[in-house]
């Protein structure tokens, strides 16, 4: 069975985000970029399915300008078999990303599509669910365990009150939560090997989809900063302050 893993190039999660002085967006100039951590977990899960003999081929795909090939190569080094880049300079809404992915799903006919549950830049948490709606497939979001059986997949999901397990008909769409697995590091020989794995480039314009933006980013501002407060010397002083100054306990 084929597994498709869409990945996104985002700011490295260790980098402190700064807003541009003109409040047009965050400043990504000369900032370290990486695979979105949730997407990395998706790649790892697909590679483990292949190692277990469940998957036969793992295809990674990213939508963006040429720079996202760097993340595709990383995914190939982690064990994916081939990569597709859909070239665009536009910063696309999740819906338009999902529409492009829908075309790729129609073409490649994967049994599973595994995505990260959200990207750590836009924090939308939409693309997997939207792709599932457009393809008419079942979805298992926020997965912490994935078990493929004959024509179904059981997905254990992280929900507000604990865990929920659902059963989905294949093909299906899965989005990953943090505890699904711990991604490996790429070894040097695998990084070298990844350079020779196939990476196909397609133009977003060739898909014949209306990619007009549906949202308009008006401004981006830094959050209200909290200021450091008072260091108290004793528990008694703390309780006294909470009662009489902050008035949050009685």
């Amino acid at each position, binding site marked *: 069975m084929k597994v498709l893993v869409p990945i996104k190039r985002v700011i490295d999660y260790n980098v*402190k*985000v700064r*807003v541009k002085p003109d409040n047009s967006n*965050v400043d990504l100039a000369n900032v370290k970029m990486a695979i979105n951590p949730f997407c990395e977990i998706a790649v790892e899960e697909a590679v483990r399915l292949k190692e277990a003999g469940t998957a036969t081929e793992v295809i990674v795909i990213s939508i963006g300008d040429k720079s996202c090939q760097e993340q595709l190569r990383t995914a190939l080094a982690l064990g994916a078999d081939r990569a597709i880049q859909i070239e665009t300079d536009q910063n696309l809404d*999740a*819906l338009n990303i999902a529409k492009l992915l829908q075309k790729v799903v129609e073409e490649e006919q994967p049994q599973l599509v595994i995505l990260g549950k959200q990207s*750590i*830049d*836009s*924090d*939308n*948490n*939409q693309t997997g*669910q*939207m792709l*599932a*709606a457009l393809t*008419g497939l079942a*979805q298992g*979001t*926020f997965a*912490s365990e994935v078990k493929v059986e004959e024509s179904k997949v059981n997905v254990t*999901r*992280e*929900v*507000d*009150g*604990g*865990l*929920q*397990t*659902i*059963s*989905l*008909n294949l093909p299906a769409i899965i989005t990953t939560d*943090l*505890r699904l697995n711990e991604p490996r590091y790429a070894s040097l020989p695998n990084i070298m090997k990844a350079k020779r794995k196939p990476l196909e480039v397609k133009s977003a314009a060739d898909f014949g989809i209306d990619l007009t933006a*549906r*949202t*308009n*980013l*008006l401004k*981006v*501002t*830094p*959050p209200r900063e*909290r200021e*450091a*407060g*008072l*260091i*108290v010397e004793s*528990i*008694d002083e*703390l309780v006294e*302050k*909470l009662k009489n100054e*902050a008035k*949050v*306990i009685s």
Partner: protein
Amino acid sequence: MSILVYAEHDNNVLKIDTLKTVAAAQKIGGDITILVVGHNCQAVAEKASKVNGIAKVVVADSTAYEHQLAENVSLLVSELAADYSVVMATALTTGKNFMPRVAALLDVAQISDIIAVESADTFVRPIYAGNAIATVQSLDDKKVITVRSTGFNPVACDGSADITNLDNVINAGISSHVSDELTVSERPDLSAASVVISGGRGMQNGDNFKLLDGIADKLGAAIGASRAAVDAGFVPNDMQVGQTGKIVAPDLYIAVGISGAIQHLAGMKDSKVIVAINKDPEAPIFQVADYGIVADLFEALPELENAL
């Protein structure tokens, strides 16, 4: 303008977060309908009918909706959406799961996790884990929005709206529920509690979380945890407060043995008053705390319990 608000519930109890989502809907302005989708969920519908400032409650009660599977719910909601200009849900597990599906079926963008309403088409939402705040305008005629409930105050519940039962039953037939493994707790819900006490890696093991119990009992607090404590296996994942866990904004947040990683701060920095107990005076948590105490938590916690 007519607004459809999806009720977040477990077939028994209407979550308080829905009252906050209604508050967000009122900021947009228009006739508000609350939609209750579930099975044997009449108690939820009755509670919803009391929510102030709404026009009506509609209920879709069927076994097909018992577990609110995204495949079934999204088909129902997108069909009902024909009569509304805005569809809203709370950004909790259920809303996050099915709403983008509704948006895609309606061929519109979704505006996720709004914390403020600027106008009927412009909304404020955190990005980059709350390290930047975006103001976003929706260009679609129909809006699909999820609401981060910590951004709004709940509306009161002394009204009496009519309840209409729907007989649409839509079963996509491609998914089914297998089992739930839910944490049973006598304590208030993390996202609804007015006091939250959370433990971090400094707690050292799961057993030590018991040190928080007595304090939580005295304060009527919910107990949370940092990602480090969850990843170390001290406590289950549904206790996690942070960027990828629960977002809380209680009146009082007590962080115990939590260093204060950006990801944790993203989940609690809108709390009214923050208290930090940590033995490392350099811990970043002190940069956001209103009151800090540099102390060994194993001495400080029993002392705090006695002092309350």
